[in-house]
């Protein structure tokens, strides 16, 4: 179920909220667990078994690790077993097709390509359950004995299908006992509406421009069209993804959870490393905690550090989708980050801010081309069109696109910066009453706008089906 759909907004969400607050506190985890199962089954009636299996595996591994507390060898074996099972699930359901078709192409074999549909959210929930097993192994947290509480953590619908990737240690305390308040619920609504508006108005608004541009052969694109197209995609994926995270964080808040932040205005970054500290923060954190640091992180010699970075970034790339363009995309960012770290990072930080910003924007936009087009040849041709290899610099199509989408693109650009939230903060400091009146008005107007856009949301793509 997509958050920006009417089944979710008018059927699932209000019913879940009403029931959640109607039942006694001790049943609330159970209620969330059951609601999340229905939520998942709504879109994936069959694969729900897989998610439950994954939950049972990590639940039992956690308990066993605690049981064999004094036996390091057994604990280690349990950790390896949990990680192996999780990665095998992910490997089979996400990467089998890629591996087999690559083998076929490379060795001219004709092994039948397994046609398994990717279970929605598998990349998110396997990473979450793995974080649990690893943290129990590292004694960062005790094992969860209550299966309902554990199931509630794994399946929790706000963050189930598109993140943020909530580590068990982040919400452990709230799983075991939390307090819901009107204040928290209100803040949750506010955050949820911010996310919904980002998705419905901004992401869907510019998404059509990218669809229209990318539907044309690259050779017939003018440079301006190609730039407008990739800009539209950059905004679409940012507002779609961060909008989802906002909605997840907001709904978590309604139910008394504090999920970690996932985005912090990535498009104002002045270096690529800065960008990755602001984009999909919970994924970068996960890879840092559970892959980069175990590999030795940066407390090693330079060649080994470079190797570690390369591994982490190729893994990050592949996490985004089972296709070679994602690996290339990850390797590309790995290379840029390595270069930034060891070659020109210092010079960059001394350069004027706009230089760093323009450099980062260029690197990121070029990256999005490879991310968005899974055919490498098309990606290369598209890049060519951006740099004048298509049909001239400007054409009527590009000007029409500018006319139709200029205002939405400007809105997106403004919403990519902390300008509005900064202004609200300053108002809060100077005139708190005016500030609260304005936020109330904005919340109500935002709610009305979202309703207007969702009823006629014929165009409502879901970008994370591959993650």
């Amino acid at each position: 179920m997509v958050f920006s759909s009417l089944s979710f907004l008018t059927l699932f969400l209000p019913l879940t909220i009403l029931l959640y607050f109607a039942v006694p506190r001790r049943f609330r985890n159970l209620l969330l667990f059951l609601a999340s199962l229905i939520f998942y089954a709504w879109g994936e009636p069959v694969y729900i078994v897989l998610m439950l299996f994954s939950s049972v595996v990590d639940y039992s591994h956690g308990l066993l690790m605690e049981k064999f507390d004094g036996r390091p060898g057994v604990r280690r074996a349990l950790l390896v077993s949990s990680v192996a099972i999780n990665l095998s699930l992910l490997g089979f359901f996400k990467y089998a097709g890629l591996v087999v078709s690559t083998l076929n192409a490379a060795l001219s074999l004709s092994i039948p390509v397994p046609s398994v549909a990717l279970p929605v959210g598998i990349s998110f929930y396997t990473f979450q359950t793995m974080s649990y097993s690893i943290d129990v192994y590292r004694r960062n947290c005790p094992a969860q004995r209550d299966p309902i509480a554990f199931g509630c953590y794994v399946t929790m619908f706000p963050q189930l299908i598109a993140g943020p990737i909530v580590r068990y240690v982040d919400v452990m305390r709230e799983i075991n006992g939390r307090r819901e308040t009107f204040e928290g619920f209100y803040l949750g609504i506010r955050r949820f509406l911010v996310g919904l508006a980002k998705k419905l108005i901004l992401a869907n608004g510019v998404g059509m421009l990218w669809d229209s541009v990318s539907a044309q052969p690259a050779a017939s694109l003018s440079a301006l069209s190609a730039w407008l197209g990739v800009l539209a995609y950059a905004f679409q994926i940012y507002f779609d993804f961060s909008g989802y995270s906002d909605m997840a964080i907001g709904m978590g808040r309604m139910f008394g959870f504090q999920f970690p932040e996932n985005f912090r205005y990535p498009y104002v970054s002045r270096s690529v490393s800065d960008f990755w500290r602001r984009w999909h923060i919970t994924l970068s954190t996960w890879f840092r905690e559970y892959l980069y640091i175990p590999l030795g992180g940066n407390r090693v010699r330079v060649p080994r550090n470079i190797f570690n970075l390369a591994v982490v970034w190729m893994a990050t790339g592949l996490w985004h989708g089972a296709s070679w363009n994602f690996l290339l995309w990850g390797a590309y960012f790995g290379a840029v980050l390595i270069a930034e770290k060891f070659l020109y990072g210092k010079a960059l930080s001394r350069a004027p801010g706009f230089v760093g910003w323009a450099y980062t924007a260029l690197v990121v936009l070029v990256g999005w081309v490879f991310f968005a087009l899974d055919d490498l040849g098309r990606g290369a041709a598209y890049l060519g069109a951006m740099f004048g290899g298509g049909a001239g610099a400007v054409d009527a199509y590009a000007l029409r696109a500018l006319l139709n989408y200029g205002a939405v693109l400007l809105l997106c650009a403004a919403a990519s910066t902390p300008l509005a939230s900064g202004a609200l903060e300053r108002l809060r400091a100077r005139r708190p009453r005016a500030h609260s009146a304005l936020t109330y008005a904005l919340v109500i107007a935002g709610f009305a706008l979202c309703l207007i856009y969702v009823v006629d949301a014929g165009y409502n793509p879901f970008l994370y089906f591959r993650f």
Partner: protein
Amino acid sequence: MKKAICIGFVAVLFLSLLLTVFLPDQSFSEMENRYLAGKPELSLQAVLSGDWMEDMETYLADQFPGRTFFVRTKATLNFLLGQREIGGAYVGADGQLFEVFSKDLDAERLSQNAQILSQFAESQTGRVYFLPVYSAFTLYPERLPAFAQEPDERAILAALGLPESVAVADAYADFLAHKGEDLYFRTDHHWTQDGAYLAYRAFCEAAGFAPAEDLAAVESAQPFFGSLFSKAPLWGLAGDRLRLYEIPRKVQVTYDLERAADSLYTLSALEKKDQYTVFLDGNHARVDIETDAGTGRTLVVLQDSFAHALVPFLANHYDTIVVLDLRYYNLPVSDVLAEHPGADILLTYNLSWLAQDANLFKLLR
């Protein structure tokens, strides 16, 4: 206030669900000109396949209380954000709407259709007329939004390369001369009957008839919101007034060989949303018309819906008119022509549609 917003948020969402479910369902949306989805039936199979959930989403959206209001407001907001291409329609100067065609028409289809037309025309014994119908944007390019691109219909006509034997009744110059009049609806892709009348005069000139003049006209009481309005239903758009010319002839009309009528107009359509269907009762595969013109002539018209407004004028000059719409007519055209040996043949098509029409091959059957 915070408490009120919390309660209001849940209440509004839940209430819209209750209203959707318990208010009687609407089966047809006049504004959007389409059927709306009803409640999906619950069954284990539909749930397991996921169909029920998908149908539920469509149902909730289609039956959302006040849907029309939301749809129109969204279109208007997009317009205010600068969008001039909404739902497949260009919003032009003074709120005139234009159909959006891709500027790059399928060149192969066009040359195929040109070939079919020539082949058909050359195999006829009767007189063959071709009457090109221009779209509003060809006559009023200055009313299109900036940078809008539409096909070059004059070039399409030239590309058809019709054989010498075909008499082309081209009203282009006359249309240009009368540009100041309402030759096209502002909210529908069709021409008005005033536009069709100019085409009729061009046809008469090609056929050597004296066109009927000074016909009386009546105007519909309700404003007409046409097909393009369904695509871009902006608040504040004024509807059109549909004018109807009275044809002083006794006629006997048979639709699809079944239903008889004694008028070329279905006046009840003026009370409905799509008032253009007043002309020849809208789309039919075949319409047979008998008139008291007493000329002894017969005409077979192969057409799209633009001809609906034109054909009534022709009742002044033909005893029998057979109107075929190849989008719906799937029997051999040659049989109809054999029924009426020596009949005049009028091919009349909107040029942009003709360039991409996939039904023209039926001409040769």
